[in-house]
């Protein structure tokens, strides 16, 4: 940023603030779009945009590594998996969403309220000291923190991911057992998960229209 000294004089207020509001203006409408867009795939792609803007926010806060991890893992990896899962599981993509029953709406209201309350408490209870000092962008700092102070949450995250992996395999296995019963093919034993995935995917795209 030291190269922008002269530009800075032309922009009212601090450059950081300006960038923050720019990114917020990008992120919030896209987040609303994720909620309100009728086409589910479109909202998936909008989610990538939201994650991209949040990556920009991390960059403004000089957390380079965090921003890049956000881009690599959330913006690309997870959202793509979401998009693919949507494509493979929901053949009628353009179907209008049914309004939920009263029970469902109450449940989601309760969950959303509890989540909001938790986040609100977390935001208000901690003190958030401001500092103009630049954070060292060193990966070493993050690595040390992850393996010493935050070792336990780190391990929890890895256990969660392992559970997700095992769950994914179980789901895929169950799917194959059903299709095997319906039409026993001669090389059913050799078929592995990706092959079945892509067979299904062609059927999905042919029933799309």
């Amino acid at each position, binding site marked *: 940023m030291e*190269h922008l000294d002269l530009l800075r004089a032309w922009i009212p207020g601090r450059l950081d603030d300006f960038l923050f509001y720019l990114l917020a203006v990008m992120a919030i409408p896209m987040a609303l779009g994720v909620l309100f867009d009728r086409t589910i795939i479109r909202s998936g792609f909008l989610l990538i945009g939201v994650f991209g803007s949040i990556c920009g926010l991390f960059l403004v806060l000089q957390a380079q590594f965090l921003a*890049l991890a956000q881009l*690599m893992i959330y913006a690309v990896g997870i959202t793509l998996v979401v998009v693919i899962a949507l*494509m493979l599981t929901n053949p009628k993509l353009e179907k209008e969403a049914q309004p939920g029953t009263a029970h469902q709406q109450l449940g989601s209201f309760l969950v959303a309220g509890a989540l909001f309350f938790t986040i609100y408490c977390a935001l208000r209870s901690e003190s958030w000291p401001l500092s103009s000092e630049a954070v060292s962008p060193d990966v070493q700092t993050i690595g040390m923190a992850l393996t010493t102070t935050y070792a336990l949450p780190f391990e929890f995250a890895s256990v969660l991911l392992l559970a997700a992996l095992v769950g994914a395999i179980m789901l895929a296995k169950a799917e194959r057992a059903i299709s095997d019963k319906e039409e026993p093919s001669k090389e059913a034993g050799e078929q592995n998960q*990706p092959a079945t995935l*892509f067979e299904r995917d062609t059927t999905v795209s042919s029933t799309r229209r």
Partner: protein
Amino acid sequence: MIANAAEIRKFTILSWGWLTIIFGLVWAVSWLVGVAIPLLLANVQADWARLVTEICQVLTPLVAVMVFIPINAMFMVLAERRALALFTVRKGPNRVGPDGFLQTLADALKLLFKEDITPRGADAFMFTLAPIIFFAPSIFGALPLLAAVTNNHNLFQVVNLPTGIFYVLAVSSVPVVGIVMGGWASNNKYSLVGALRSAAQAISYEIPLVLSIITVCLMAGTLDVVKIAEMQKGGLLNWNILGGGALSGLNKYFQALAAGQADAHQMLSQYYPDWGSVIATVVLIACTVLLVGIYLTGACAEINRIPFDLPEAESELVSGYNTEYSGIKFAIFFLAEFTNLFIVSTIATVMFLGGGDCPLPDWLNPLTNPAVTQPVGKFFSFFTDRIHLIDPSTFFPAIWVIIKVYALVFFAILVRGTLPRFRIDQLMAFGWKRLVPLSLIIFVLVTFAKGAVRLHV
């Protein structure tokens, strides 16, 4: 005598001609924006002059990349067609311009003037956005590498990041979003299947790719591409492809031997004190050679090159995710594909092949010998000192980078001419059952072997 020696000669002339044009132009533009304009404004004592100077210097890397990408893609398409013709003993495109020299320029012009069609039922906005998302990362992703390949030139230092290689990897994983978006928005089942294949493939092959790069970073102890390139200076034995710096003790020993020092043998026992360190060195060399293989395989799959080009398998899917594209949008997809090939070759060069380092060690290399360079350098002092057109500390590394990168590109073309296409289940099985475990094993091996020997002494 080789049967098609005449064709090989023509191909060589064509390549050198194009390369001279490309890099001459990039060099000239970077000099104009980064050096000439600031030099002209150096005597003007005004605020706007300082502002223009700063903006020019900050924009130099971006301008260089923007000039480079389209011309380079034109050259690479032509080189690929001619080289494939060589491998299959044909002639290749040879009508437009002298010996087919301008073929791709004509192709590019034709593509620009073609009608831009949006298919009925397509999502028009996302149909337009997809090529942009596919192409933009190849501009931004290459920037930190620019500092590494120019030996950290003053003008290109701006683009270097402390998280260098991680940035490159993160940004170069974005294009798959563009492919999925384009495939879905086309409203065509072939496009959709191509896009889904591409997503599955990119996610699975990104893991071995990233693991191989991480292993190199582990050996180097940094993510900074400039530092990684600088560590490997001093000849072939220092490069990461040969043990990640485990052989640099041997390099020192040879240097002492060549200088006729009596205590050279002592040096050897100082760098490799026991059998453990020798074994660790051998393990590291085996690991790094395998790592290069894993990286190149993963990179090939990541950019959909031929043994892994299932997203656009023309025998099954017409043209895959870009079936419905025409005109300028198709040109952008095409441009980005070839630029990505160039970028992954550059990453391989910087991470494994020593960046801008001469394969000869310093003590054998006449170019670093002051007795040779001093008298020759005087002839060029007008260019180096007066108008700063050539900076010797950047010029020679840049030449080496160009040679190495295009050698890797040629290798990719050779692979394309040689290997058949994978089937989708073979592709997945190969990625998950072979490459991922292999790269994890190498990672663990390197972690232990690294402790027993001193790297980059």
